[in-house]
């Protein structure tokens, strides 16, 4: 757990130990084959130890009117290990879990300003989906 929190701090710059504790409890043991929390471990070949990358996802059905689909909530790779195929391996691994669980679509949401992640996901063949995400500032009058 501390290694995951440490990797997240490097990637996002925000420490959120409580969030990760909850994620680990909810997703850690792959409950019912619908939730997945995968990590890439120590890599002696690269001379690295600890958690080098992670991906979290879940099969959800019918929210937003969507048929069953594999959602990728988070994917992260240590910055100094990027462009070495770890992200591709992680995404392939969770896609494989989704496929084995019987879903044929994988989906995620990414900040428009996160060019690195957006370009990575595009390079993996992900395209804009049929849903549009909307939001509203609640402290404003409508």
């Amino acid at each position, binding site marked *: 757990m501390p290694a995951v929190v440490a990797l997240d701090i490097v990637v996002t710059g925000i420490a959120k130990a409580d969030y990760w504790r909850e994620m680990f409890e909810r997703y850690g043991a792959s409950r019912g084959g619908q939730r997945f929390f995968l990590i890439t471990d120590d890599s002696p070949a690269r001379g690295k130890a600890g958690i080098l990358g992670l991906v979290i996802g879940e099969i959800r059905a019918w929210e937003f009117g969507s048929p069953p689909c594999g959602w990728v909530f988070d994917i992260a790779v240590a910055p100094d290990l990027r462009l070495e195929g770890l992200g591709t391996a992680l995404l392939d691994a969770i896609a494989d879990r989704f496929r084995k669980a019987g879903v044929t679509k994988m989906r995620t949401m990414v900040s*428009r*300003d996160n*060019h690195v992640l*957006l*370009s990575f*996901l*595009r*390079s993996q*063949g992900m395209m*804009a989906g049929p849903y549009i995400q909307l939001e509203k500032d609640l402290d404003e009058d409508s």
Partner: protein
Amino acid sequence: MRLQQASRLAIYALLALAAEPDRQISAAEIATTYGASLNHLAKVMRDLGRAGLVESARGAGGGFRFSGNPKRTTLLDVIELFETLGGGTAGITRREVNTDAGLGLDVVLGEIDDIARSTLGSITIATMLKLIERQKRRRLPIIRPAGKPAAKSARTRKRT
């Protein structure tokens, strides 16, 4: 959204060159493929050369070669050599944006611009080549053993 011909030709040329890094391709070949004038294409190639994305090869049959990084060069990088996309105003004049309605329309069109920029800025030449390959695979004819009837399509099955 609409791109100027120069932007489109530049993207086509880079894709052709990046798809076959070992082959030199002439401007005439690209111009013929896309029905563009050689003059226009030559100008586009000059601009791409200045940006360091292509280099011309000397000698007999000298053509062009891709000299950029296909994993780093995005469609937006290429387009912005030739035109300004939206630029936050989506063609709305300063006078218009000073009106309530103009400001409202500017917000809505700006939303579309942001999505377009983000899309074009996240798709690299390498990603485009993969996308084109996927499209080609989807268009491949269905090969089946002779003498066996074709499998019914999902749509046909639903109807029966």
